[in-house]
C-alpha cells in the first residue's frame, strides 16, 4: 500500500459517519433531484414504447435493403411515422443515431403519396381504420412496414409488435419481407413469431 493508506481512513467510525451523512444527503437532496427529473419525464413512464423504439433501432441492424434503396453508401436511413401515438417521441429520439454507417432520420409522414424516400414506415394504431388501404399503398415499394396492432402482420404488414406476459414480442410476415426484397437476418427470425399469410 502506498504512502496514503485507505485502511486508516475507512474505519468503523468513518463508515458510520459516511452512512449518516449519506442518509441526510438523500433526505435533503433526493426529493429535489426527483422533482426535476419528473417534470420533464412525461414519456419516461412509458417504458413500453421506449422498448418498442429500441426494437425498431435493433431491427435496422438485422435487415438489409436492396442496394438501390439508397442513393449512396452513406445515405441516411429514413424512418417515417404514420399517424400519432405514444411511440412517436421515443422514435424521434432515434434521430441522428448511426447504424451500419448510416444515420437514422425520423420524420412524420404527412402525405402517403410522398413516401418513396422512406425505408421504414411505422404505422400507429390510430391508422387501424384505413389499415388495408395504407398497406396496399405501401405494396412493392421496398419499405419495411412496422405496426403495433393485432392483425397487422396477417393483413400483410412486415413486422408487428404484441405483448406476451407483459413483455414486448414481435411477429414477422416472411412473405411480405420477401415480396419487398428485404433480407431479414436469421437471428431476427429466430426471436420472432413467424406469420405465413399469402401476400402478393
Amino acid at each position, binding site marked *: 500500500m502506498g504512502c496514503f493508506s485507505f485502511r486508516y*481512513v475507512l474505519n468503523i467510525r*468513518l463508515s458510520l459517519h459516511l452512512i449518516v451523512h449519506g442518509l441526510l444527503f*438523500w433526505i435533503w437532496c433526493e426529493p429535489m433531484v*426527483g422533482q426535476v427529473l419528473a417534470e420533464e419525464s412525461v414519456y419516461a413512464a412509458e417504458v*413500453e414504447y421506449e422498448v418498442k423504439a429500441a426494437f425498431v433501432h*435493433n431491427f435496422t441492424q438485422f435487415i438489409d435493403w436492396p442496394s438501390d434503396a439508397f442513393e449512396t453508401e452513406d445515405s441516411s436511413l429514413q424512418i417515417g411515422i404514420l399517424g400519432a401515438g405514444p411511440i412517436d417521441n421515443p422514435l424521434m429520439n432515434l434521430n441522428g443515431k448511426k447504424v451500419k454507417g448510416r444515420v437514422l432520420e425520423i420524420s412524420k409522414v404527412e402525405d402517403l403519396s410522398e413516401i418513396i424516400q422512406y425505408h421504414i414506415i411505422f404505422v400507429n394504431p390510430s391508422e387501424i381504420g384505413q389499415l388495408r388501404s395504407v398497406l396496399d399503398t405501401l405494396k412493392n415499394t421496398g419499405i419495411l412496414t412496422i405496426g403495433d396492432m393485432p392483425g397487422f402482420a396477417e393483413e400483410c404488414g412486415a413486422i408487428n409488435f404484441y405483448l406476451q406476459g*407483459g413483455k*414486448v414480442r414481435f411477429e414477422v410476415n416472411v412473405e411480405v419481407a420477401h415480396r419487398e426484397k428485404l433480407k431479414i437476418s436469421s437471428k431476427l427470425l*429466430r426471436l420472432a413469431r413467424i406469420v405465413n399469410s399469402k401476400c402478393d
Partner: protein
Amino acid sequence: MVTLKRSKERKIPSHFFGVFFGLLLGVFIPAQSYSTTLKNVPDDLTRLTLEELMEIQVTSVSKKPERMKQAPAAVFVITQEDIRRSGATQIPEVLRMVPGVEVARVDSNKWAVSIRGFNNLFARKLLVLIDGRSVYTGLFSGTFWDTQDTALEDIDRIEVIRGPGATVWGVNAVNGVINIITKKASRTQGSLVSGGGGNVEQGFTTLRYGNKLGENAHYRVYGKWFNRDSFEHPSGMDSNDDWTAIRGGFRVDWNLSENSELTFQGDIYNGESNSRRFTVLAPAVSAVVNESEDVKGANLLTRWSRQFSDQSNLKVQFYYNQEDRKGPVFSQYIDILDLDVQHRFALSNRHDLVWGFNNRVIIDELESSFALSFNPMSDTNYFGNAFIQDQITLVPDQLKFTVGTKLGYNTFSGWEIQPSGRLLWTPSDKHTVWASASRAVRTPSRLEDSFTLNFLTLGPNTVQLMGNTELKSENLLAYELGYRVKSTKHLFFDIATFYNVYNDLLTQEPITPSAPFFITSQNQNLMKGEAWGIEVASTWDVFDFWRVKAAFTWFELDLFLDPASQDPTATAANGSSPQFQVNFRSYLDLPNGWELDTALNYVDELPDLGIEEYVRLDLRLGWHASDRVELSVTGQNLLESNHQEFLGFAGGIQPALVPRSVYGKFTLRY
C-alpha cells in the same frame, strides 16, 4: 481500538475524501443538463440486444414479479448487471457485495463463504442452489466453490436470503440461502464469445450458442475454460494453488402450452484444483505437501411447471447430480437423486397456500488415507421432508401473515420440525415492514457421523477427531425485523436486523483414545450461542448515467460452552467473522459507450484467526465498441500488493495471500 486512534491522527484524509467526492459531483452535475439526461433514456435501451429487450417487463402481469419487494425476509438480489460490472470471474467473488454475507478467499481456488457468522472454509449453515439444484456437498454440507460455476453471462440473478429459509427451502438453510438462477434459453439466443487474460487470470474463454427448437422451444449450449495462477503463501513460498477447469452445459425451455413449461438442463465439468496442505502421513509423521485434486462432475435436471390460474401452479423437479473429487488425502464419488414437488393454490380470497415435498438420496463412495478415513467407506442416506405454508391476508394490500412448517426425516438425526411465522405490513407502495420468528435445524452430515481425522502430531502422539453417530441437529431460533423503503423512483433502502439463538452447536470433546499414542476427541453438541446484527443495503440512481450502491453489516456473535464441554477451540467462531463490513459500488456510464465501475470493500479484522482488517478496491473500465463488441479492463485489490483474508484450518489447507490482479476481457455477441 487501534484503528479509531489512527483515524483521529489522520483527519485530513477524510476531508480529502469529502472534497474528492464533492469535486466528482461538481464535475458531473453541471456537465450534464437534465434535458440531455432524458435523451439518454432511449440511448440506454438501444444499447440492449434484442434478447435483453424481450425480457423487459413493460406491464405487470401478476403480483409475482413483486416477490422480492414483498418478501417478509432479508432478501438481496444480485442482477446480471451487478455481475458484469463487478468484473468478477468467479461466483463467490460476486457475493462480496451482499450485506450479512462473509466472503473470504482462502487460496486461489478456495473460498470461505457464510451468512451471519460461523464462517469456515466449508461453512455448513447455508444452502447453495443453482437453478433449484443443491450444490453443497452431500458429504459434509459445505460448498466446494471451485466447482460451482457456469457461464457468468447466462446468470439472470443471484437471490441471497439471509436468515432461516427453512420452511420452503431444504435443510441446511439455517443461516441463509444463496440461489443462483440462470436465464431462460429464450434470453440467450445467438452467439456469445468472450475471453481474456491477465496476471492471475491466465486465460479464460466462454462460448455460448442459442437457437430455436421448433416453434415453442429454445435451447442454448455453452462451453467454458479457464486457467488461474497460484498465489503466494504468507511465508513467501508459492502456494501451489493454481487451478484449471473446463465445463460445458445446455438448457432447453419448451413451452408445452400457454400455461405449461418443461425445462431440461445439464452441465459436465472436469478440472484440477491444487493446494498446499498440512497433513498427517502416518502416526507421528506430518508434513506440508503439495497436492493435486482431480475434480469432475455432471448433472441433469428436468423441471415441469404448470400455471392453472393466477393463484395456482404446480412445479415438479427431478435431478441427478454427480460430484467426484480425487486427491491424495481423500476422494469422494457422490451421486445425488432429488425429487421436489411444490403446489400453490388459493384456498379463498384470504388464504394463499403452498405445500410440497422433497425426497433425496445421497449415495457415496469414499476413499481414505491415514489423515482422513470413514466408517463405513460407502453409504446411502435418505432425506425426506414435506412442508405447508399459508399466507393469510389480514388486511387487503396491507397486512399479511405467513405461517408454515416443515417436517423432515433424515437417516442421521431422525425427525425434525421447522416452523416459522412471518408478518408483512405494507402501509403504502413505498414502505414495507416485516417481522419473523422461525426455527431451523442443520442436520448432522455424513462426515460428522462417521469420520476419523488425524489432523496434528504432537511429539510421538497423533491428535485425532472422530465422528459421532449420536449427534443431534444443531438448531436455531431466529427473530428478525426489517424495513424497506423506495422513497422515490431513484432511491431504495433496505434494513434488516436479527437476533439468533443457537442450541446444540457442535464441539470437539476429548474421549478415551482408540489406541496408544493417540489423543482423541469427538464431535458433540455442547455449545450454545447468540448472534445479532444489522444489515443495510441501498441503491441510489443519482442520475440516469450514475448508480451508486452501498451495503453495511454489523455482526455480533457470542458463543458459550456447556459446563460439561472441554473444547478449547469451538468458541473461536466468535472472532472468525468481521464485526463490520462496508461495501460501496459505483456504476458510471460515460459518453460513447464507456463505463467506469468502482467497488470499495472494507472487512473488519478476524481476531481469533489473526487476520487484519483490509480494504479492497476493484476498478473496471468497460467500452461498448459497438452493439456487439464489449471490451473491458478490470483491476482487483488495487490498494495492496496482497493481503490475507482467512485461515485454511479445515483439512490442513494452507492459506494464501490474495494478490493485486489485472485482466482484460472481450465479449462478442452476434
